[in-house]
């Protein structure tokens, strides 16, 4: 049953009917089926729910809904009981019948599945009261947990395509652009370019045709907000693109999405098909004269294709290599025609701005950065997941209040923001408000919103080496500074980590970094030295310790450490000997064990296994 909506009023009345037919008070169990929760077994839980309601004969009364990502991936699979919004975590298929019985009864709570505050040991019932959610402002990401991404009715039911309605019926393209400009929205892909200005330039540019492109080639290690948005709420992106097409005057849109995101691809294609069937994509949309179609293009696994010109080259079927942007892509982009490229999150912000108005939107955030930003909080942090916070929140609030701090009571050391080409910020900068400009000043960047938290066990030189090697592998190799520079940089960092660093290596790294910063062709090369420069700026002593004293202060770099067993602390439990893959540890039960350093492969297994801190790294 898919109605082909021919006019704006037909869409409006269709939505009203939907709302009327759905009782917000009727019980609904939403199971998070984002990629994170699926990995924890959400699909089995979902299957168990579906089976059980059939068994119990309550499939009319209780709705089971598979939704997109809720963000709290650490505790998946997540199940939310609506309308009360009771949040259960780490749900397994065995819990299903108990939950269903409670819901069918119309009350009761299963204590053990609730979130427990680590300090007060208190159980928290409702989703919005859990600290992880309490401090967030989930305006873009919020609907993810409410709707089934494969059902367009769910989206329309919560007010979807209302912004499109408003734009087509009451606004001119110029007014739309003025609205976006006034909202202060800046590109969420990393560059932070004002979206309205980009749109305006693209509208003004001359060309036979214009293209709208959605960049979903999210390649930063640890970042997955674009993925979750596309998986959980694809229609918000489609609606944003439709509004952009109207404002700019485009007939053709592309979503360039990583091939490694199968669920995002399938949910998005499903959404596009449904939108087309409903008459929301295609020719003469809602009788407004707007023609627009969206095609999905799957990327071939190159990080550099997230760069706009490389992405366009790849869309054209050429090798994904960037080109100089002295002539901007809004003038000559895809097939040399004016092209407007925005990131997934940017597109998802558009309907919100149109619906709720400029004043509301620009009241959120800081002077130079408006709205919210989704961050993926990963690394050494208690609450791994996706968080959406207003711009200007401090790193401390994000990491400690929302993220729940560092596991095992370790000490916070640094946070890497902005992905591989971002920078590392030390403890002293924890009170830095997070927005585009402040991060840039501190030598890092917003990037696409990755946040990797590091504790005292992380070696900063090794961290820089990891990111430089990632970029070395992902560099397209077109320009000299990026290709040759990253290769040499990787070698120097490797050498330092092995304890073979030389006098002058730090200066050489700095020389190399400065030239790469100034002369690389694209954003990848221009920002590639950031991990090195920011760690040199804030953790120079660690580099010096590696080179001058052949010592790794974090006791991490394999070539610079050795393991031994403290005879007084060892209880002879044998746990270390059991896990040692090299049989380097010997000793009788209840007697002090011995570690043979020649056999030791420095895998850290014994260190992790010992409960008495008897394994010592020196």
């Amino acid at each position: 049953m898919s109605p082909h909506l021919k006019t704006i009023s037909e869409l409006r009345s269709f939505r009203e009917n939907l709302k009327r037919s759905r009782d917000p008070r009727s019980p609904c169990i939403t199971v998070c089926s984002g990629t994170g929760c699926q990995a924890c077994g959400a699909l089995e839980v979902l299957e168990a729910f579906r089976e059980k309601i059939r068994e119990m004969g309550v499939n009319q009364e209780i709705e089971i809904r598979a939704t997109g990502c809720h963000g709290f991936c650490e505790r998946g699979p997540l199940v939310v009981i609506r309308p009360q919004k009771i949040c259960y975590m780490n749900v397994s298929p065995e819990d299903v019948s108990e939950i269903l019985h409670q819901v069918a009864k119309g009350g009761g709570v299963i204590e053990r599945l609730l979130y427990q505050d680590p300090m007060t040991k208190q159980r928290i019932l409702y989703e919005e009261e859990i600290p992880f959610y309490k401090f967030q402002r989930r305006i873009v990401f919020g609907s993810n947990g409410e709707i089934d991404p494969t059902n367009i009715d769910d989206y329309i039911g919560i007010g979807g395509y209302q912004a499109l309605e408003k734009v087509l019926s009451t606004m001119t393209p110029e007014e739309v652009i003025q609205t976006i400009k006034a909202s202060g929205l800046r590109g969420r892909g990393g560059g932070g370019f004002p979206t309205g200005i980009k749109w305006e330039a693209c509208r003004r540019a001359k060309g036979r045709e214009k293209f709208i492109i959605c960049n979903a080639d999210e390649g930063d290690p640890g970042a997955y907000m674009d993925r979750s948005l596309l998986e959980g709420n694809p229609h918000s992106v489609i609606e944003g693109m439709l509004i952009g097409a109207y404002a700019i005057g485009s007939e053709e849109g592309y979503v360039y999405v990583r091939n490694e995101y199968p669920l995002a691809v399938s949910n998005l294609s499903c959404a596009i098909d449904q939108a087309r069937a409903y008459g929301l994509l295609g020719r003469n949309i809602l009788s407004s004269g707007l023609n627009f179609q969206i095609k999905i293009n799957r990327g071939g696994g190159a990080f550099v294709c997230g760069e706009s010109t490389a992405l366009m080259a790849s869309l054209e079927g050429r090798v994904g290599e960037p080109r100089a942007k002295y002539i901007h892509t809004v003038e000559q982009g895809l097939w040399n025609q004016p092209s407007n490229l925005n990131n997934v999150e940017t597109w998802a912000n558009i309907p919100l701005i149109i619906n709720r108005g400029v004043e509301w939107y620009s009241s959120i955030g800081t002077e130079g950065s408006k709205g919210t930003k989704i961050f993926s909080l990963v690394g050494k942090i208690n609450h791994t997941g996706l968080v959406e916070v207003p711009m200007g929140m401090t790193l401390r609030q994000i990491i400690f209040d929302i993220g729940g701090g560092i596991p095992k009571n370790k000490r916070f050391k640094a946070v890497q923001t902005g992905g591989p080409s971002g920078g590392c910020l030390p403890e002293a900068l924890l009170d830095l408000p997070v927005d585009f400009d402040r991060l840039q000043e501190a030598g890092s960047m917003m990037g696409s919103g990755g946040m990797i938290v590091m504790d005292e066990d992380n070696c900063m030189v090794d961290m820089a080496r990891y990111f430089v090697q990632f970029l070395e592998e992902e560099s397209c190799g077109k320009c000299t500074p990026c290709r040759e520079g990253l290769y040499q940089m990787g070698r120097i960092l490797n050498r330092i980590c092995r304890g073979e660093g030389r006098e002058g290596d730090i200066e050489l790294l700095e020389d190399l970094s400065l030239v790469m910063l100034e002369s690389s062709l694209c954003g990848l090369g221009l920002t590639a030295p950031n991990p090195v420069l920011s760690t040199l700026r804030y953790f120079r002593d660690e580099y010096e310790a590696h080179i001058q004293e052949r010592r790794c202060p974090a006791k991490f770099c394999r070539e610079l450490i050795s393991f031994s067993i403290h005879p007084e602390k060892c209880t002879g439990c044998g746990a270390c000997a059991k896990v040692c893959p090299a049989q380097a540890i010997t000793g009788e039960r209840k007697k002090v064990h011995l570690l043979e350093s020649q056999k030791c492969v420095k895998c850290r297994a014994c260190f992790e296994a010992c409960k008495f801190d008897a394994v010592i790294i020196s």
Partner: protein
Amino acid sequence: MVSLTINGKKVRGSEGSTLLELCREKGISIPTLCYHPDLSPQGSCRLCTVEVFKDGKRRMVTACNFPIQSGIEVWTHSSPVLRVRRLLIELLLARCPEANVLQTLARELGMEGNRFYTKDPKERCILCGLCIRTCREIVGANAIGFSQRGTAKKVSTPFEVDSDQCIACGACEFICPTGAIQMEMDRIRKIKTSDTGMKRYCRYMRLGLIDFMICSNGFECWRCELDQRMEDQFPPHPVFALKPAKKRIPLEIESFIFHPDLFYDDQHLWFKPMDSWIKVGLDGLSSVFALAADSIWLPSEGEHIREGEEIAQFIQEDKKLIFISPITGKVLGINRDILESPSLAWRDPYHRGWLLMIQSEEKEKIYRLYSGERAKEWFTERAKEMKPILKDLEETGASKDREVWRKEEIQKKWIFLTRILFSNKP
């Protein structure tokens, strides 16, 4: 004319030219490795980096592809620029220590020693890409390209197999600045280069510079008289003197796009003979109708069509524009994108806006159609007739969105336009 300052001196250059072109014109020398005046700038060696100030903001740009702007202040040899150039040469010398061009540049910049690691002291290729662009943009053979990426990047043939796309013209060897490419005649001789596999077409024939010539010297070009004559007549290398591929790129005639490498018939359909099939589309003039059409009809895939039968219909309300096939064959494929969006034919007539592919034995019929200079003359004549109507549209349409206006006008003038365009149509 654009006026700007270079190294403190006021200069003027023509709009659209690049900074490097202007500098060379004014006698300012900027080193380059990946630049060649006959090729599109790639901007990859970064040696031509210069410092540009605009409205107080400083930027480092590559001169080879930076279009000059009025009011900018350019420094071509400031100390930050020289620091960049020195380090880039140091990096490239670490890659290719034996390359003479690099050694000379290093001497000129007064450099000594190298702080970086050399992986392969025998490496010669600096990945400037001159050979690849020459093969694509001058020769038109597309026989080589970059493979791999990052530090593993290299120049190679597709799948690193000796392929018959290579016509052994030697232009890549000629252009290589470091001597990294050498012709291997033994291997070239083994590549099949003609239909029978035994005969070998002369490289000048495959370049389109002479009509027909079978090589009788086993590709030992130094023994060939014709080869000698060509080299004498077109120094320093015939390919660069004649630039065959440059004659095959689409050009704008009276603001309509014309593709010089295709065949055209009186209906303003273009034909492109491929291996065993022919690709068909609307040319830059008749595609105007696609802009106004409500829908397009195309035959279905697999259908057999005879000469004189319909191969496409453009429908707008009660009006219909019918195109007929000049050949007999089987429809191999149709462009589904154009069915969804007919205006694609106007937006991109020779590339994404194709209509259908026909498998046919009658290729020779296509060869009899308009082509080359004759096609261009014929197209220009028609374009001139069409131009006043569309020019009129552009001027009066200033208040309304240009494309929408044009579309409406075409709808109104549909019959009138068909009369101009298809006066020769049977």
